[in-house]
């Protein structure tokens, strides 16, 4: 069964090699005459200022937090969905309780205003 994935593995290395070879050939062929203006970061035509290492806003983190929780929930949803027909109503109630408890957390976060983008 695992040997079926040999094909995927071969495909992966072909894809990797394709990118590598393409970039390498391009590096050999293309002209390279850098100037200071050419090397500046492209910011939609604006003159770039400041570094890329600015401190991010903590709200990004709060959204990422909620994302992680619901990502884990999704990971639990997949096996449930596969066996849903076999378990019937029992499985439905179980998952309803699970989702309800997590939704409670979402409602709390929402009411606290953590998702609000001030």
């Amino acid at each position, binding site marked *: 069964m695992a040997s079926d994935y040999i094909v995927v593995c071969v495909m992966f290395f072909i894809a990797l090699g394709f990118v590598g070879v393409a970039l390498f050939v391009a590096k050999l062929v293309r002209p390279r005459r850098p100037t200071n203006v050419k090397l500046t970061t492209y910011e939609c035509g604006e003159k770039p200022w400041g570094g890329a290492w600015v401190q991010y806003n903590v709200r990004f983190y709060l959204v990422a937090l909620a994302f*992680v929780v619901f990502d884990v929930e999704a*990971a*639990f949803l997949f096996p449930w969905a596969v066996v849903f027909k076999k378990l019937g109503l029992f499985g439905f109630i179980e998952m309803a309780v699970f989702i309800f408890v997590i939704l409670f957390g979402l409602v709390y976060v929402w009411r606290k205003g953590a998702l609000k983008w001030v």
Partner: protein
Amino acid sequence: MIGSINILDILKPELICAIVRVTPTHYLYVAGIVFCIGLMGVMIRRNAIAILMSIELMLNAVNIVLIAGGRAYGPKTYDASSFVIFIIAVAAAEAIVGLALILAAYRHMKDINIDDMSIMKW
């Protein structure tokens, strides 16, 4: 015979077989090495986020052991896989709370160097 060393005399067929035929022990070695690397990261790194990352590595090593054990025990039992799903969920919860704590500590002390976090020490 001197001067013409047959490589097959050094690399015995049984040894090659033992190396090439992947058994659960191979996975245990990999997991053990990764676990120890994570342990070393926890002990030597100064940045709190790096320590958290090392803990994730250790959890990852445990997952490898569990999956390899489950596969060695038999393909039709899924206890190990269920455990791993739970471990991953707990790791996610640990990561979000741990990183939030690190952020709070950073706001408080403007740094996440654990050498300086010694207010609670005697």
